[in-house]
């Protein structure tokens, strides 16, 4: 397959001088992708919790 075109970690981080452009791209992309995946997971759990809470309140109210 392909070889790693970077000789060292420093070279990798430097990105041929374009580090100021390449790294922000990947960092921003990662942030957006992770956030958009994680947030719905938490939202679903929150909604289920809210419904459960309301259900318990209703049942208590009926007793």
């Amino acid at each position, binding site marked *: 397959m392909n070889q790693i075109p970077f000789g060292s970690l420093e070279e990798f981080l430097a990105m041929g001088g*374009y580090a100021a452009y390449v790294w922000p*791209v990947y960092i921003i992309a990662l942030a957006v992708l992770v956030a958009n995946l994680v947030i719905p997971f938490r939202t679903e759990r929150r*909604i289920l919790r809210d419904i459960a809470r309301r259900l318990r309140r209703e049942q208590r109210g009926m007793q």
Partner: protein
Amino acid sequence: MWVWFHKLGSPRHFYRISGRLLPWLTALAVGLLAVGLAWGLVFSPPDYQQGETVRIMYIHVPAAVMSMVVYAVMAAAGFVYLVWRIKLADLVAAASAPVGAWFTVLALVTGSLWGKPMWGTWWAWDARLTAELILLFLYLGYMALYNAIEDRRSAGRAAAVLALVGVVNLPIIHYSVEWWYTLHQGPTTRGMRIAGTVHPDMRYPLLTMMLAFGVYYAAVLLKRTRCLVLETERDSAWVRELVKTT
């Protein structure tokens, strides 16, 4: 056959099926993204013209492609909702909009970061970037309209009409912007295409990333639609049963 189609539109059925699919889909999305990112960032060669900045392509191009795919899905789902009144279609459209908008923002930001070293400016009125900017306006308008109308049903239907008008306009917009751009090209062709012919060593990581973004969208879409299903069906019997058993 009709029974299956009808069941497909049932929110409860959707919730159950998506619940079983989602773990696999999410794992696949994360895996593909990891492979694609590693491949694009580490295991692929630099471009002889653009140097290491070509690695931006592995994010920019999939994001731009998905921004348009998601809009098409949104418009199609809206169409299904308008014609067949399947509520799930409306939820799919509503769930897709923010994701598509984020893809568009990502495409614009990465395009700008790619443009700066290539063209020397943070923003260049390149044909593709300009069309992408207009697409962002279309997404924002869609979401604004959806939020502005109080009745959920009317909001979904109005937004669906808007999405369809947008989808008809998209090719027109692309053509116009291309035409406008070539009109204003200077003799120094600074406006080189961001993604020209792709070297085979770059083609595979790019395809992997595009597939990864697609699977990712599917996973996020299912998850977001599940949330909308729960919200709109919270008073129904099956949701109450579901909550009791969890």
